[in-house]
């Protein structure tokens, strides 16, 4: 059903790398004092999303993501690339811009993965809106909430975990 082959995986990895290069224009590197925060954000998103993707598939609300693509999407894209993006824009961009940025990057990546693997192929978004476009767009807009959730989650985590860089 899905076409997950090594060359296609490499193409998507290259695509992630290209997007990361773009993201790094905003923030070239993660400062030493931010590393702990970056790990917290990355793992804090990757692990739950990896699990949620499968559970939502079982619930019929998401299309299946083969384990390799699920891993790539959650750990490499969300865990690394989006963490970089968030740390780069959280201080300088107003929240609406951050939301727009995350939603835009999300829809780009979803369509790229769909093109490469055939994933993200469900035809409804929570049975509220029909069609694959609604599905991809709906989840991309949902991904736009990343900076809002991260902001508050990080503030909450900072009350327990020391040396997190919060804003």
């Amino acid at each position, binding site marked *: 059903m899905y076409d997950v082959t090594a060359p296609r995986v490499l193409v998507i990895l290259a695509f992630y790398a290209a997007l990361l290069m773009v993201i790094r224009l905003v923030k070239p590197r993660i*400062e030493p*004092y*931010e590393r702990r925060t970056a790990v917290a954000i990355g793992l804090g998103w990757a692990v739950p999303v990896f699990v949620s993707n499968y559970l939502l598939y079982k619930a019929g609300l998401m299309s299946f993501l083969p384990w390799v693509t699920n891993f790539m999407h959650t750990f490499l894209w969300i865990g690394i690339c989006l963490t970089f993006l968030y740390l780069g824009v959280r*201080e300088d961009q107003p929240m609406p811009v951050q939301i727009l940025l995350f939603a835009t990057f999300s829809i780009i990546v979803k369509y790229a993965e769909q093109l490469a693997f055939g994933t993200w192929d469900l035809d409804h978004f929570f049975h509220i809106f029909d069609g694959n476009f609604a599905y991809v767009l709906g989840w991309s807009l949902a991904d736009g909430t990343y900076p809002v959730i991260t902001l508050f989650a990080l*503030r909450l*985590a*900072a*009350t327990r*975990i*020391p*040396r*997190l*860089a*919060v*804003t």
Partner: protein
Amino acid sequence: MVSTETPPRPPPALQQGKTQRARQRLAIALRVLAGLLFLGAVVYVLGPLVGPAQDFFREPPFVSNSAVKVTVIALACLYAAGDLDRRGALVLIVIAVHLISITAMGSMLLFAETGRDVDLGFAEPSLSTVLWAAMALDGAIALVLTALALPARLSRNAPVPTPLSRTARRTKVFLIAFAALFAVGAVAYEIGPFLNTSDQFFRELPFVTNSVVKVSMLAMLCAYAASPRNLALVTPIVAVHVLSVLVSALYLIFADTDYTLPLLGGDVSMTDVLWGALTLDGAIAVIFFLVARAAWKDHYQPKFFAPAQMRALEAVADVLVAGEDERVPPGDVARNVDREVAEIRAQRRWLYQVCLAGMQLRPMVELMPPLSEIEAGARRRFLTKRFKAPPPWPPFIKHLTQIMIRICQQLSFVGYYGDRRSFESIGYQPFSERARFADLHVPEPGPHPLKVDRPENIGVKELKADICIIGSGAGGGILAYELAKAHPDAEILMLERGQYVEPRHFSEDEVAMIGRLYADGLMQQTEDWRFTVLQGSCVGGSTTVNNAVCFDPPQRVLDRWNGEYDAGLDLGDLSRSVAAVRSFLSVIPQKDAVLNPSGPKYLGGAGKLPAGRLDVGVVQANIQGCFGSGYCNIGCKWGKKLSMLETALPWAQRDFPDRVRIVSDCEVERIVTLSGHPKRVAGLRAKFADGRKIDVRARRYVVAAGSVASSYLLLRSGAGRGLPVGKRFACNMGAPLTADFDGEPLNSFDGLQISHFGIPSDPGFVFETWFNPPVSQALNMPGWFERHFENMQRYAHLMAVGVLVGTEGNGRIVRALTGGPGVDFRPKPHDLQTLARGLRLLGELLLEAGAQRVMLNAWGDYEFTERSQLAKIDEIAADPDDISLGTGHPQGGNAISRDPKKGVVDPSFRVHGYEDLYICDASVFPGSLTVNPQLTVMSLAHYAAQRIAL
């Protein structure tokens, strides 16, 4: 007996009155006609989309032309009505275009096929009936306008022959060329229905004639606008082409355009025709806009404002600065303002642009032309009715209009009184031109000893130090010196948002110096724009621009801080710090200085008050050898004011070589906090004035950026979350009384700006004599229009005294919606009552001193000539919408308290919950002082330096 003689001509005045009334009637008729035409435009626009006559409106391009036609005629009517003297020719154009319309329809009736019926939805008359009706209507309009125009004696003002610039010549040629093109277009529309190859396309004759009229009107307008003095008429041409684009787009989206019509031997799709019209009109709009913009830019040479804003500014300056002997033309006022605003560093400069754009367009809501197109008298009436005395409801709109006119008034005064040409008329002399200047043998200052790194000298992306101090003012300066002394090995880094202006570069140009030395160039206002919050923003901070007046922190205030707010200050230590700072800065009574010439009047008046009501004297200040230039508030060029710029900062670099580094033009945007117990600061993110970002790392961070900026920095960084950051903002609220004395000029500008104080037996306020160079004085001068102008003409005979009231801490610093910090403060009734009490006593003092009148700076026009009238002050001061208030002493926001619920910093000035973040400036005051706060800020900095350990 019937006289056969010609009746005598009425006397000129009577004739003039008749003409005036005729003009008023004509103007009203034009505005009514414009209103009806705008309604007609709405009908045309909606015709193809809704209603029963969609079949009649079936050719969208012609319908769009019809909407444009009525709109452009309506705009011409408005422009004509606004200034019949200047724009009388437009009435003739409107009449002419109606005659063209009649001619076009007449020719259709004579030569085209008009026998068929048209479906109007409610009736089905023949096409000829519709055309006859339209002709009758246009004829009636032309007749009425002619009948009204004749007695109005419209004359064509001959243009003043002036040499045209290259741009103006090009514009003229361009407009004449387009006039010809539009005329050709009119002919093309007219002959369309008569050709076999196009008669099916041009079949809806009423709309075709509308199209003829539209392009004829545009042709005449282009020809009219070709004269440089009529360039403003390009705006309606652009506007109607934009309208055409919008209407075409609307039809493309919502109307049925999916059909073809025969034209010139082929079939054309209506969709394609609409796209073509949209593109063509869009291109015309852009080209006209660019040409007009280039012409206006050539005229004004603006650096910051758009041409339309410059016109608005010129128009408001023309009426707001009103007098018989105006020395600066309104166009030059606008140019002065533009030049000055372009130089200031303010986040909210765009508000000026929005305000001026709003002023320009506001009259159109009432079927009047843009403000700059209204005749001066009517413009003044409009500003008076709609802005000076705006309708009370809705309050939001009322307040907004008041803000707009206030901004326009301030800009006008800045442009007029900042211009040297106005000085002679008000009796002002810059220091260097005063007679005594030559006798003083004032030396020209040399290079300043301070070493300051400007952004261009810094190539690294990270700065490191042991202690980083944000701000270089009263708090920061003393901290730098004392911390360098207390920690012999420590490297101190000071980051200053403002510029480093060497004192030798201080000039007598008041506006330029305000722009360079003040936060937001005087644009720092409270959120409701009722209250100006002055703050220096330069190396040396507010100490560079304040009056250096020193008062010890009042004991009753310190007791309240330690009692009610649990500040936990060691008052003994603090007292020693006060003494140390006094000694460090040589704070002395200014008895030997060149005191303000108004001082004797003030002291004389105070002497006539009942004994014991007021303790008056000469202020103490960190000033030595003052020349009395009166430039304290725009920077003392000669180093006589011992500000941080002259003392603590250079002395710290001298006494602790290579350990105190100052970086200017560097705004700290964020404090990066690491979580934990306690929290730590990971670093600072700062931005240079050139836009580059830089990281800063230190072992200790001390925020000393002033009440507003310090609180805002914490708020935007999320630092101190859970603490009352930005709360308890208070100030020494000030309002001046200006007194006018007959006789010899006082020349209050020629001496120390603040030289005398007064402390009443009944506490709550203090008096300070106070006078400014012309711009600042004009901004605080009561009165509108001629009244303000006349008051300023008395400048040399005036003195002013301010009442300072320490307010409650009911304000707060917020993140403003308009960007940057916002000051949310509205004085409490109790504070306003105290202010009123102070003003009444001061009024008595000034009248006793012999003032002929005493004026209160308020929205309304208030002056008092007798003591009995002073009771009214209670009523005026009770209304914060009326009385004009301001402060140069913002305080609070990060109160000091042992209790984290009450304060942001603990008694060692460390932010609660942090290991390495401190605040030390006026923001730590838990309540206002009432007296000038600089000595208290410096003393607290001296006190805090002993408590900041590495």
